[in-house]
């Protein structure tokens, strides 16, 4: 016997595998036949699974979409940057005896030098100084933004691009070269629209106080502004940019502006210092180092450290929480679907008690009965699951069109879809198991007597 089976072992195994496959296919066909005894009932049950599986995939896709959106917003700020922002210190109680004309606070050139010399792995430090000034073009006044003095590498650090890469330029190193006072300006997209609604701004002039600046470039729109406004950073598109050195030469460290009748003056040397570190992984450590360096010279706390990476992380986390919530909702629908399956299978088993008795009498083992009813439950769940997966796969197309979701993106991950089938099958097995077990454990004699 053993030599024979040795020779034909492979063929025998193949035959066995084929037979098993045939048996399963046959069992599936039989299951479908039994389900078709009550097509309406089967369809409704499959529908409940469809809702469950569909809900899981669609909810995950919506969560993924929301997460993606949030991350994109902050990514434009640069994950490897730290923005240090001057802020007005909390009102001091000795303001009555401080009769000084200007309120002085914020970052200084000294800070810039200290950062450059003491914090390692810093690739770029970008000084930014700004003023609240009206900008004129002829009789057209623009007072919505700020006049920002900065350096050539600011644009790169802020992922800030020219509207048309082939025309115009950003502030150059030459503009800020020692001893130079270049009267050039680069307009943010908003400022350009307001000042030059009809003409091409490049080559034209704008007036700030008594001085005329030649427009050398127009920047592209900043795209999504949610992230910057969420971090209380101004809208870059509203600003007018001039060389830092020009601004310092004409205005010095003072920012005088008239507000509701009385004059106020702020003395802020640098509005912002943008620090770019060499690697994303050390951003948080360097932010702590920066804070240490700065806090010694700024006991009033007149600066603020903004770490976009932190914001990205927070956005990721809140998106994750959102996704978990959505997945939980989907999961609950799936459980409800499963309960639907169980309910229907219990009814089916009771109704087919006699059939169970007949099958047992004809030689079905308990396991055959379990398999039979499990397969019926599986067919229902897989059928529902299939349509659920289809609904999920197509969700990027239809979700943004559903008014309830208001342009919400949906991103389907293959892994989630691939997971949906085993999950649907699992629901079928878990909720089908008890009814199947009940059927298998009926007393065959009692079952045969059942009317």
């Amino acid at each position, binding site marked *: 016997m053993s030599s024979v089976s040795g020779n034909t072992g492979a063929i025998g195994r193949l035959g066995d595998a084929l037979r098993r496959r045939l048996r399963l296919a046959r069992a599936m066909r039989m299951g479908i036949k039994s389900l078709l005894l009550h097509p309406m009932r089967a369809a409704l049950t499959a529908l409940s699974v469809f809702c469950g599986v569909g809900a899981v995939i669609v909810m995950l896709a919506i969560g993924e979409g929301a997460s993606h959106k949030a991350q994109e917003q902050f990514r434009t700020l640069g994950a490897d940057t730290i923005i240090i922002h001057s802020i007005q210190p909390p009102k001091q109680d000795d303001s009555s005896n401080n009769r000084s004309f200007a309120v002085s606070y914020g970052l200084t050139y000294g800070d810039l030098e200290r950062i450059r010399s003491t914090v390692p792995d810093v690739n770029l430090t970008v000084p930014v100084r700004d003023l609240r000034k009206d900008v004129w073009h002829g009789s057209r006044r623009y007072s919505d933004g700020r006049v920002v003095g900065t350096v050539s590498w600011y644009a790169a650090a802020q992922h800030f691009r020219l509207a048309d890469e082939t025309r115009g330029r950003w502030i150059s190193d030459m503009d800020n070269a020692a001893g130079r006072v270049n009267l050039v300006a680069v307009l943010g997209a908003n400022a350009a629209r307001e000042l030059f609604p009809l003409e091409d701004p490049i080559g034209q002039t704008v007036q700030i106080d008594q001085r005329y600046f030649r427009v050398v470039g127009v920047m592209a729109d900043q795209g999504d502004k949610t992230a910057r406004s969420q971090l209380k950073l101004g809208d870059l598109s509203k600003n007018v940019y001039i060389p830092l050195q020009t601004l310092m030469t004409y205005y010095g460290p003072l920012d005088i502006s008239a507000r509701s009748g009385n004059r106020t003056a702020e003395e802020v040397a640098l509005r912002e210092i943008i620090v770019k570190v060499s690697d994303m992984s050390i951003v948080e450590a360097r932010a702590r180092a920066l804070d240490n360096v700065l806090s010694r010279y700024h006991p009033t706390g007149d600066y603020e450290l903004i770490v976009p990476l932190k914001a990205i992380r927070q956005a990721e986390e809140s998106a994750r929480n959102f996704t978990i919530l959505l997945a939980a909702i989907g999961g609950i629908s799936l459980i409800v679907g499963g309960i639907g399956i169980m309910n229907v299978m219990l009814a089916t088993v009771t109704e087919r008690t006699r059939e169970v008795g007949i099958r047992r009498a004809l030689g079905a*083992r308990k*396991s055959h009965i379990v398999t039979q009813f499990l397969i019926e439950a599986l067919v229902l769940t897989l059928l529902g699951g299939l349509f659920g997966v289809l609904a999920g796969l197509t969700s990027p197309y239809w979700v943004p069109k559903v008014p309830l979701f208001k342009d919400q993106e949906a991103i389907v991950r293959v892994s989630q879809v691939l997971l949906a089938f085993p999950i649907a099958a699992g629901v079928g097995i878990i909720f089908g198991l008890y009814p199947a077990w009940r059927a298998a454990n009926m007393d065959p004699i009692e079952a045969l007597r059942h009317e």
Partner: protein
Amino acid sequence: MAMAMEAVAELIDVRKYYQMGTQTVRALNGVSLSFQQGDYYAIMGPSGSGKSTLLNLLGCLDRPSGGRYLLGGIDVATLSDNALSDTRSRRLGFVFQSFNLIAQLTVIENIELPLVYQGGSTSQARHRAYELAAMVGLETRTDHRPAQLSGGQQQRVAIARAMINDPLVILADEPTGNLDSATQGEIMDLLDSLNQAGTTIILVTHEDDIAHRARHVLNLADGRIVNIETAAERRRRFGLEVEA
């Protein structure tokens, strides 16, 4: 015909007790009996005499509370549930009063069902099922559902199903109880012909003219064997002429 004397099923002091509340019902109270290969038995008796219990035990649907039941030499009382199932699918054939076909399956699928549970090759099973369908005269109805058949036709399907595993014994529980008298005759003729071809048949009935067809009639009362008559003795008792 030497083989014919081999016992296919043997009951030795078989008892079956049920607990009904505080009362013990003695459904079978010491039954000893052996069935030979090719035998044809009718079991008779008033209701409550233990007919159904005896048939359930013979059909391996139940285990005796005491005594031994040897089927093909194997003691059924010691078998596991799975082994009992396998015994039913390989060694026994059932014919019920209410046909008990499975509604969603076609005639041919109903016939081959016992073989499906043996896990045999489906093409062979199918081939054998067609042979049996032809034997019971339903070769043109193989794709019909039970609901599309008459009672007599359904019982033919059930008989074909009982034959598909070449059983040691066919157990028939009032096989004609749900049929009109003309159809009754047809079904009994079919069973008679199976017996003449060598199949052992045990049937439960309460109708004398059905019992007359059997070679032995077992009379049960209160869970005990009252007597076992041969066909000749019985026919004489009923004043019928005895076949030569």
